[in-house]
C-alpha cells in the first residue's frame, strides 16, 4: 500500500481566510489528483497534475505538484462557505494503481 498522508486532518476557518492542505508520500506518482467530497455524495475531481513542479490554478484554488512527484499542495484563497467539504488527494503510480489520501475535512464558518 502506498500511503498518502494529508495534513491537517481537520481545518476550521473563517470565511475570507486563506488555507493550505498538504498531501505527502514517500512514493513517486505519475499523476496526482485532488477531489472534493460533500456529505452523502461521491468525490468530484478538481484537478489533475502530471509534471513535477507543475502549478495549476482553478479560480481561488491553486494546486502544486512537488518536483519529485511525491507530494502536492492545495491552497485556497479567500475561503467561502461553499468550499466546505472533504478534500482528497489521489495518486496514480507507474503500475496504473490508484491510492487516495487520508483526507482533510474543511469547514468554512460564515
Amino acid at each position, binding site marked *: 500500500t502506498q500511503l498518502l498522508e494529508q495534513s491537517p486532518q481537520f481545518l476550521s476557518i473563517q470565511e475570507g481566510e486563506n488555507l493550505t492542505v498538504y498531501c505527502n508520500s514517500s512514493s513517486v506518482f505519475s499523476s496526482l489528483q485532488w477531489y472534493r467530497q460533500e456529505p*452523502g455524495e*461521491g468525490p468530484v475531481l478538481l484537478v489533475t497534475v502530471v509534471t513535477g513542479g507543475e502549478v495549476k490554478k482553478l479560480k481561488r484554488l491553486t494546486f502544486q505538484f512537488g518536483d519529485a512527484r511525491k507530494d502536492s499542495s492545495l491552497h485556497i484563497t479567500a475561503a467561502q462557505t461553499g468550499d466546505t467539504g472533504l478534500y482528497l488527494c489521489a495518486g496514480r503510480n507507474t503500475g496504473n494503481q490508484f491510492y487516495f489520501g487520508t483526507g482533510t475535512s474543511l469547514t468554512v464558518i460564515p
Partner: protein
Amino acid sequence: EAGVAQSPRYKIIEKRQSVAFWCNPISGHATLYWYQQILGQGPKLLIQFQNNGVVDDSQLPKDRFSAERLKGVDSTLKIQPAKLEDSAVYLCASSSQLTDTQYFGPGTRLTVL
C-alpha cells in the same frame, strides 16, 4: 449524460448476514472501480475492472468479498458474511480509456449491527 448509479443508497444488516451492492457506470466507460470509505477516511480501492476483466484486486478481502462485472457493464459487489468492521460507504466509480478522470456514484452506506 447520466452519472454513475448505485443501489441501494442505504443498507442495515446484522453481522454474519450477506449483502450485495449494484453499480451502473457511465455508458461507454470501460473501467469500473469499487472503493470502501470508512467514516472520516479516504476511499480504499477494493477492485478495479477493465471491461469484464479484473485489473487489480490486491486489497479485496477475498475470504468474504466478491465482485463481478458480467458483460463489462454493470457490476455487483457482495459481502458474505458481513463483519462489524465492514460498516462503511461503498463507492463505485467509472472512467473512460481516454482519461483517468474517475466519476463517482453517490455510494451505498452500509451499517453492520
